[in-house]
């Protein structure tokens, strides 16, 4: 269907039109006069876990329906009670994107699809007073640390005091019709204009045909659940498109100093600094996660860069190492962190021991971990100078561990005093941890760790894991990479400074005020929050930069064959921040083996070509559930999320004729045929008389 007319074809067509000589001028395809394709890349799609399916799908040929734009609540009633032209495709702003609305639409049986339009002047802050989050009230709880806890205080904590009170679980619901998000203003206007011109009821009376209609195409291949879906895939897919694929991406990490396998890593010597790399929404191609993820990512990167400037000092006095890691797929049941833990337990983190590889990277296991510092949402504190520290009540019941944690808390406190910008407040000790990657570790090992957030109890982020969690939500106001007026990047930079100062103290046991670079922080924030074609990405992104659009980063994990540009770009940026420039030309700037402790990256757009030696690399982030033979899909041990395959998602707007008109045309056609059969038969059978072939005798 999506055939495009090439130049030559177009010319031919035009001539065809000429020789027939009665069609539209200019030789445009008639199709273009009937259909307008509008933004259709942000479709709600299907995902599966071990037991359920979630998301949306259209029918194979798409869902069509008469467009109805909902401007106020009463418009719903009009459609359900009076609207005679069902099925309808409803269009409304995020204001009406609630479970109740979607459920009523499903129950009415009159709705074949929904488009959520976001006009330019839509201001979530003043219009969406209740917040909006597609997540559950207790994100990731079922795969977290406390789910199986015997202590009801912890296991049921979130249900009593939800972390995410705005959670609608909409992301985790299976809808019967396709749902699309439309943010492109031309498309939004197109919908609005077409509705007003052809469909808008006049004084409550429905308009007559032809009516403006939409076709939503987002047919999903997968069904039922991951187990069924993966089993089908293993039988052998019928086409190149899979029924479903496990969620898949790469954890991005690097250490301050290289770890050679020939040197033993002391126990409790690796300080892990972690943040979550991914975010999700109901819709494809949009997952800004400004506070959900970016705030943590940038704080970590900025702190890592600041620490790395003091690398030599730390290495000289300390045998500790620092591991900066960005976990992928944490939204979907802690995929990245559980994979790291699994690999560590299997003795294969980052890789199994290889023979014949020189300077091989050492293996890290769970006993090597010293402290664990995690950054979750840190961008929206109520009081700009106040962040909260969460600790785990279960593991800290152990007095030895409690001492370590207290030490860590003291150091963080001292660091905040030293930097004197951001204060830390410890959350009550009996409150369990909010959703965080450290839970994956604590399920298997007792380590002392903290989770730094901007919230004490419930999330300060009203749009957790939604498409509205963008730069507007966190009030990031910089319009370019050098804007100094913005307060947000200063806040993030302060947190990074405190973190770097604390890490320095943890590693060296000496106090030293370390300040992160606010310009770098701002540049990074600008890239991820507003424009992935920013200068930094151009310099470090290499080939990957060409594929990115001038839009906020898309933070969804995707699947193995999915889009991975922002993961690579993030790794390159990390490599730049945690790497040393070395004198090598482009051809020498490469690694012999990925198992080497050092990697080399060549940035051709950085100072006319720069080679960087670093420990930064990426390791697979796919749930162990897909690697364990005979894994029990219902056990709830590891994430089982998969994503459905699909061919295309597309939205078209067009006019639909009335059935009466259609019948009339068909009748006209039949009449034309029957009449001509009669006439031709008459003329043919009496051709001799009609054309005077037998006139001579007749004239006689």
């Amino acid at each position, binding site marked *: 269907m999506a055939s495009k007319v090439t130049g030559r074809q177009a*010319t031919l067509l035009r001539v*065809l039109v000429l020789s027939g*000589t009665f069609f539209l001028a200019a030789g445009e395809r*008639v199709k273009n006069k*009937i259909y307008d394709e509008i933004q259709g890349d942000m479709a709600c799609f299907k995902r599966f876990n071990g037991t359920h399916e979630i998301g949306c799908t259209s029918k194979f040929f798409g869902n069509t329906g008469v467009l109805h734009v909902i401007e106020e609540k009463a418009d719903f009633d009009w459609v359900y009670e009076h609207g005679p032209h069902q099925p309808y495709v409803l269009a409304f702003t995020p204001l009406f994107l609630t479970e109740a609305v979607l459920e009523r639409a499903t129950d009415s049986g009159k709705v074949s699809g929904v488009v959520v339009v976001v006009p330019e002047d839509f201001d979530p802050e003043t219009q969406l007073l209740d917040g909006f989050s597609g997540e559950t009230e207790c994100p990731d709880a079922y795969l977290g640390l406390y789910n199986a806890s015997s202590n009801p205080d912890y296991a049921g904590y979130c249900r009593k005091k939800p972390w995410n009170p705005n959670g609608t679980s909409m992301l985790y619901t299976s809808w019967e019709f396709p749902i699309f998000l439309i943010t492109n203003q031309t498309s939004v206007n197109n919908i609005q204009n077409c509705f007003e011109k052809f469909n808008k009821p006049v004084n409550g009376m429905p308009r007559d045909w032809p009516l403006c209609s939409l076709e939503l195409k987002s047919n999903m291949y997968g069904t039922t659940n991951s187990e069924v879906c993966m089993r089908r895939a293993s039988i052998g897919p019928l086409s190149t498109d899979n029924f479903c694929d496990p969620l898949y991406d790469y954890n991005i990490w690097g250490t301050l100093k290289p770890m050679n396998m020939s040197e033993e890593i002391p126990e409790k010597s690796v300080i892990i600094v972690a943040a979550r790399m991914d975010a999700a929404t109901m819709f494809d191609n949009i997952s800004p996660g400004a506070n959900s993820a970016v705030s943590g990512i940038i704080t970590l990167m900025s702190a890592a860069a600041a620490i790395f400037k003091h690398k030599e000092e730390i290495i000289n006095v300390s045998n500790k190492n620092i591991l900066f890691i960005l976990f992928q797929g944490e939204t979907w049941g802690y995929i990245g962190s559980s994979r790291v833990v699994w690999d560590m337990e299997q003795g294969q983190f980052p890789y199994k021991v290889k023979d014949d590889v020189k300077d091989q990277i050492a293996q890290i296991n769970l006993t090597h971990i010293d402290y664990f510092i995690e950054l979750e949402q840190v961008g929206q504190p109520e009081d700009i100078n106040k962040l909260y520290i969460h600790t785990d009540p279960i593991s800290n019941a152990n007095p030895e561990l409690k001492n370590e944690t207290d030490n860590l808390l003291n150091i963080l406190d001292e660091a905040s005093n030293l930097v004197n910008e951001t204060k830390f407040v410890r959350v009550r000790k009996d409150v369990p941890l909010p959703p965080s990657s450290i839970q994956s570790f604590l399920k298997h090992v007792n380590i002392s760790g903290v989770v730094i957030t901007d919230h004490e109890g419930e999330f300060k982020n009203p749009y957790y894991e939604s498409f509205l969690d963008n730069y507007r939500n966190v009030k990031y106001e910089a319009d370019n990479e050098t804007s100094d007026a913005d307060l947000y990047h200063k806040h993030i930079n302060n947190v990074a400074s405190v973190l770097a100062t604390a890490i320095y103290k943890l590693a060296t046991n000496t106090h030293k005020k370390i300040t992160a670079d606010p310009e770098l922080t701002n540049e990074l924030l600008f890239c991820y929050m507003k424009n992935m074609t920013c200068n930094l990405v151009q310099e470090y992104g290499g080939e990957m930069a060409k594929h990115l659009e001038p839009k906020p980063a898309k933070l969804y994990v995707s699947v193995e064959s999915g889009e991975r540009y922002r993961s690579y770009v993030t790794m390159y940026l990390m490599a730049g921040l945690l790497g040393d420039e070395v004198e090598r030309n482009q051809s020498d700037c490469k690694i012999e083996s990925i198992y080497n402790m050092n990697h080399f990256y060549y940035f051709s757009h950085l100072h006319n070509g720069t080679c960087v030696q670093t420990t930064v690399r990426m390791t697979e982030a796919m749930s162990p559930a897909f690697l364990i033979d005979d894994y029990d899909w219902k056990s709830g041990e590891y994430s089982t999320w998969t994503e459905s395959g699909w061919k295309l998602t597309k939205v078209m707007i067009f006019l*639909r004729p009335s059935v009466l008109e259609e019948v009339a045309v068909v009748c006209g056609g039949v009449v*034309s045929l029957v009449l001509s059969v009669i006439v031709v038969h*008459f003329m043919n059978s*009496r051709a001799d008389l009609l054309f005077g072939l037998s006139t001579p005798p*007749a004239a006689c």
Partner: protein
Amino acid sequence: MTVAEFFGCGLIAFGPSLAMFGLTIATDPIRTIMLVASAFFWLLALLFSSILYTAVVQLQDYLAFGVVFSVLFQELFRFLWFLLIQKAEGGLKKVSDGNMQIVENKHILAYVSGLGFGMISGAFSLVNVLADMTGPGTIGMKGDPKNFFIASAVTSLAFILLHVFWGILFFNALHRRAYLQLAYVILCHMLASCITLMNPIYSVTIPTIWILTILSGVLAFIVAGGSHRTIQSAFRGRPQVLQVNADATGNFTQVGGM
């Protein structure tokens, strides 16, 4: 439009030619071959029009230019086709298997050729539109006339019929060296084609084209030997004629019926 309207418009435009083909052409292999061959000549005309159109880049924006030359090419190839079958008459006699009707009655070959031209031109002009009709939508969202499909089908039908009539008139003119008739065909084709440049003012174009169609039809009918008297006798029916010339008519019907 929907599948329903696809069939509706398809039948409106191609119903008559379908009936003509089924009842008068398909029954005779020679006629079928001649129809396809004449359609091929129309395609050649299209090819040359296209080459000219592609070559003259400067005039591509002027639709009228293409229309005029396309018409001229079509008429030129109609003439070439005429020359070819003149030459091939001997051969035709051999293969016609004792049935001399197609050679003796020149109008039959003219009619077959005209229908070949008409069907192929109708197909080429409407198939694009028909193909785009199958989706769920109809035209009109962007301010285009809502009756575009019907108008296209009706215009297509007129052109198919016109080609049939022009075929008869054109061949007759060449046989009898009646150059006025020849001029009429070319001018009528030119007028009918050029009037479509006024689209989408269908209230002007469609009546004009249909007036030309009826006029050409009447002329073709007369040229082929018809008159109001023959119509009357045709309506009065066969028995009278059978009495007079039973043998000849018997032959006739048999040939037509085979």
